[in-house]
């Protein structure tokens, strides 16, 4: 594989005075790689992904994204974040703006693209996620699945070097999960570098190159997808898999 896009080295983090949420976590995501991060609730996987674009500060270790150290004061964080796409559990579209404006805001204000160019790019991406007809609507008029697809398009409009997914399907009604996963699978197959926190093991099997299993703030297992599902080494991952794959 090519150059690493994300390097997480010995990261520790805690919230306030509570115990550590991340304990000595190290993980590398190479260009073009799709890495799925899974694990039980409270294992720190969501926190970890939020640290990757410095939405959450870390207390120890370092994180390098696209060759830039997030802890380096000289790094222009907004510029860097603009190139790291993030998709949230609750979509977080801006409800007071039309779908089209949701896609254009950061393109024009952060990347400085002319409005016409931003709109062209936005419409192309809405087309890609199958929502061309919804450009003039407000997010509140869309279903959850549609909103999440718009959120993915909004992140893609920034031409990100990597896409982060933070439980992108966990807040959706069951029948809407697949339309969002379809978009994510298509994205993975197009060669996008992705770090995906999810419980959707079907997605992991289908497109992930590696699966990382987290437990109690630590990485318990980091293995190629096939090896992870067929022969997980850690006992905790075995238990986890046997529970969620039973049904």
């Amino acid at each position, binding site marked *: 594989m090519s150059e690493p896009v994300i390097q997480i080295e010995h990261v520790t983090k805690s919230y306030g005075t509570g115990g550590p949420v991340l304990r000595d976590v190290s993980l590398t995501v190479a260009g073009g790689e799709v890495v799925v991060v899974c694990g039980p609730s409270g294992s720190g996987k969501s926190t970890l992904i*939020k640290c990757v*674009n410095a*939405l959450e500060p870390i207390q120890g270790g370092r994180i390098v994204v696209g060759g830039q150290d997030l802890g380096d004061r000289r790094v222009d964080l*907004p*510029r*860097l*974040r*603009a*190139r*790291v796409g*993030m998709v*949230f559990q*609750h979509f*977080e*579209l*801006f*409800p*007071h703006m039309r779908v089209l404006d949701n896609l254009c*805001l*950061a393109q024009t*204000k*952060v*990347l400085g693209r002319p409005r016409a160019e931003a709109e062209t790019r936005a419409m192309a991406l809405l087309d890609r996620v199958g929502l061309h007809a919804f450009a003039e609507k*407000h*997010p*509140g*008029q869309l279903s959850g699945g549609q909103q999440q697809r718009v959120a993915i398009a*909004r*992140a893609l409009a*920034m031409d990100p070097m990597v896409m982060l997914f933070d439980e992108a399907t966990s807040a959706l009604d069951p029948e809407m999960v697949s339309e969002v996963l379809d978009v994510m699978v298509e994205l993975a197959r197009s060669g996008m570098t992705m770090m995906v926190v999810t419980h959707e093991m079907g997605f992991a099997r289908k497109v992930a190159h590696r699966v990382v299993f987290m437990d109690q703030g630590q990485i318990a297992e980091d293995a190629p997808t096939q090896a992870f599902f067929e022969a997980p080494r850690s006992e905790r991952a075995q238990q986890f898999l046997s529970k969620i794959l039973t049904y």
Partner: protein
Amino acid sequence: MSQFDFEIIHRSLSYLFFEGMRFTLTLTLLSALGGVILGTLLAMARMAGGPVLAACAAGYVNLVRPLPLVLVIFWFYFLVPYLGQWLTGASRPIHVGGFASALITFIVFEAAYFSEIMRAGIGSIPRGQAAAATALGLTYRQSMRYVILPQVFRIMLPVLLTQTIVLFQDTSLVYVLSITDFLGAASKIAQRDGRLVEMYSFAALVYFIMSFTASQGVRTLRARVAVPR
């Protein structure tokens, strides 16, 4: 006591409205505008300004709110000339007109109330919205300007307008500075012609009708501005 004289009201209408009400409305609108802007800055300083700035903003709000408005109006009117002298190094107290003094007072006073409204409003926006804006590369200022504040103003518009109606009533307190606002104008004619009952009753009626109508307007608006989520 003589009969209720409608004629005196009729004769002074143009003075009451073109002099008095115009002053009252100008003062109300400019104070509300300035108060919302300063209040928003105070709210932002308190919520994201670092410990020192936040403490200053909180101190300001907590200092102003327990003071009676009339006291602040007086205090400002008599102290601002000396404050100006001290600040500019002039040899004599600077001249500040009644309008400027009243406007500054109301902005300073109302900002403390508006900042609490804005603080509640900013707090009501889900944290994920700011996170999403940040993740897209927007700076704090940009995310406030384009993402958070537009939603806050929409949600809080009825409350902001209600506070402005209270402000409209409170501007009558400038009568202590002998300024010709609506009440001041009515008061002057009342004193001059000895028609206290007529003029004060009429003033009360006008304040009631305007405030009541505006409140009803806010109620209708409240139902219509809810942000669809």
